[in-house]
């Protein structure tokens, strides 16, 4: 065996170019398959994290009827002891109570139907964190005038700023990103731009009677911080709910659909407003990870904790079946793309093997003619192929590692129209790669199988080899 290995190794380096071409085809096969899959999985994962963790949560405790009929009548009694019992369950990261309903919001002569989400201002920081979404910077005409008058910022930079007129930002990083300045310009002018576009904003206190209004809704109602908004609607069990609420802050929600109609208030204020003392419509539970098994165990544990059998925990895919199906559909089409890639790759590998066999037909003929056992020859060729395969595989995997690592830590940030479009859908416009997981090894296994499959061809050729014909060529 050792001898055969030696011969195989020497054979490989006898014709370097051929070896390099064959292993390169395997290398690229592995490399592209791994990187592509990593991207696909990473983007889904990011989307899920993005969407689930700050929107539906992994699990939600609801009244059994609430999902089909999201009315405040289908709420349930809530107290802090339930929340603390749930948060003591293993691997539960956060438990966030919500009271949600729809009302009319009115200011001046403008009226609009809005979604009211009542939160616990402190606990909510672990979930959707509205404090992070407060509008901090706003490019208004006034701000641009300020920048112009200060005279520090050159015209070309000012033009870039003007392109983002009427846009608002929750962080200076986002503003920086959208302006797309060079590092040099950033250092020179960013402080001034930030200074001129900065706006004051406020968050809710624990028992606040005030509200946060989403950016687009605020501009529709024409309200600013300190103004009041009138809310009118129906409360618990048909009570008419009316109230006047001072605006404490303006928040920017990436999705315009939600940004057009969101009002956030504290749970005590909402319970008073809707006449729903002690009620909430949902408890949002976030977990350490989203594995199916963990979801199911925690779901069962919560259900056994709830005193009322009409109040149950639902998983995010039960709450948002459309998103779940969409992710699955995407994953399927990704797998189909990958299948296509494998197909091409296989024929790449097979092609080089075919070439090798026809090149070495004479060589094989001579070897068999001078007494080499066909069995031994087959072993040598198999070892050669496996060596080639593992060189390509290992190199491919190694080459993909830095790329995956890099894009995991520094994901591709989309810009321009595409980015806006993604934000419109409620996604962060970044595309990270997935951390190494089963997919990584599976690509290696699949490509290795393809190499084995391709090896069958030379083995068959040797089996049927006729020395005379082979030597004569």
């Amino acid at each position, binding site marked *: 065996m050792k001898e055969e290995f030696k011969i195989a190794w020497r054979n490989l380096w006898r014709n370097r170019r051929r070896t390099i071409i064959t292993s390169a085809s395997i290398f690229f096969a592995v490399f592209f398959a791994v990187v592509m899959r990593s991207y696909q999985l990473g983007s889904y994962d990011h989307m899920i994290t993005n969407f689930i963790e700050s929107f539906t949560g992994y699990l939600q405790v609801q009244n059994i009827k609430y999902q089909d009929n999201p009315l405040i*009548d289908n709420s349930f009694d809530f107290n802090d002891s339930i929340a603390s019992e749930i948060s003591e369950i293993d691997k539960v990261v956060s438990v966030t109570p919500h009271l949600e309903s729809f009302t009319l919001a*009115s200011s001046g002569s403008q009226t609009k139907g809005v979604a009211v989400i009542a939160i616990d201002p402190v606990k909510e920081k672990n979930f959707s964190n509205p404090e992070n979404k407060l509008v901090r910077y706003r490019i208004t005409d006034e701000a641009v005038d300020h920048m112009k008058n200060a005279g520090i910022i050159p015209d070309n930079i000012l033009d870039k700023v003007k392109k983002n007129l009427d846009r608002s930002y929750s962080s200076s990083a986002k503003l920086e990103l959208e302006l797309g300045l060079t590092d040099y310009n950033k250092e020179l002018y960013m402080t001034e731009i930030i200074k001129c576009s900065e706006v004051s904003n406020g968050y809710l206190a624990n028992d606040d009677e005030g509200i946060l209004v989403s950016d687009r809704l605020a501009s529709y109602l024409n309200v600013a911080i300190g103004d009041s908004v*009138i809310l*009118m609607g*129906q409360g618990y*069990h*048909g*009570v*008419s709910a*009316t*109230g*006047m609420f001072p605006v404490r802050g303006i928040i920017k929600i990436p999705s315009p659909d939600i940004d057009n109609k969101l009002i956030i208030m504290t749970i005590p204020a909402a319970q008073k407003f809707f*006449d729903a003392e002690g009620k909430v419509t949902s408890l949002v539970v976030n977990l350490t990870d989203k594995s199916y098994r963990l979801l199911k165990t925690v779901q069962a544990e919560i259900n056994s904790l709830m005193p009322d059998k009409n109040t149950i925990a639902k998983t995010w895919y039960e709450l948002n079946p459309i998103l779940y199906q969409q992710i699955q559909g995407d994953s399927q089409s990704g797998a189909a793309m990958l299948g296509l890639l494998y197909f091409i790759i296989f024929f790449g590998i097979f092609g080089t093997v075919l070439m090798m066999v026809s090149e070495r037909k004479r060589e094989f003929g001579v070897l068999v003619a001078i007494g080499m056992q066909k069995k031994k020859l087959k072993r040598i060729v198999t070892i050669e192929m496996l060596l080639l395969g593992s060189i390509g595989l290992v190199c491919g995997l190694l080459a993909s590692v830095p790329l995956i690592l890099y894009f995991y830590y520094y994901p591709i940030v989309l810009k321009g129209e595409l980015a806006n479009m993604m934000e419109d859908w409620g996604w962060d416009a970044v595309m990270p790669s997935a951390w190494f997981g089963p997919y990584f090894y599976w690509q290696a296994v699949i490509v290795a199988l393809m190499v084995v499959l391709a090896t069958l061809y030379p083995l068959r050729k040797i089996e049927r080899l006729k020395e005379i014909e082979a030597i004569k060529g």
Partner: protein
Amino acid sequence: MIFLIITGLSFLSQPGFTQQMSATDIVRKADEKFNGEKSSYSVMSMKVIRPEWQRTIEFKSWTLGKEYALTLITAPPKEAAQTFLKRGSEMWSWNPTISRLIKLPPSMMSQGWMGSDYTNDDILRESSVVTDYVHEIVGEEKIDDRVCYKIKMTAKEEASIVWGRQIRWIDKKDFLVLKAELYDEDGYLVRTETGSDIKIMDGRTITSRIELVPSEEPENKTLIEIREIKFNIPLEDSFFSQQNMKRVR
């Protein structure tokens, strides 16, 4: 306001009329009694009944002819002091918690009044039961030991009514509407109203209890009870003003 509907049902009594009355006469007689009255003041309670809960709203109501009505909510405390004003075909609401006078937009017309099974539209569109329908006596039936005319009322084509037809059971003796079935234009039963608990109030025999059951959700119910009613009290047009909405107690 609500009173307008109720009077449609709780006809004012007047003992025996001549035997041969046409269907239109019967309906007109009842209706004229109502329209002929100058004004009214009433105290009522409305119980909204749902499978899992129920709540009671109490209110006072003033009416003048068919054009004017003013309603003041008196209970529960959270909703007390809200007022509703009807002038002709327009309706306003005043809400003291937000100090706002709101003219109810057309989009709110199909919504339930105070969460009940009565819609705002029911309250406003008190179409004429006499002139907007063609009437026909289709039989006699006994309801709670009272012999009633069963009258089929088909909406005239040019009339702007949400109902396609109605069937009313009008008591022969006191001309009380004991039951009414309201059908939509496609002939489906939309709701059933029944009058009961006949009492003498302010010298008239009326049904003091009216129950509304929407036929699509038979477990839902709205129950109105008349606690107190006075007829022909002195009231002026000027009583039904936006200023008075904020003052009336």
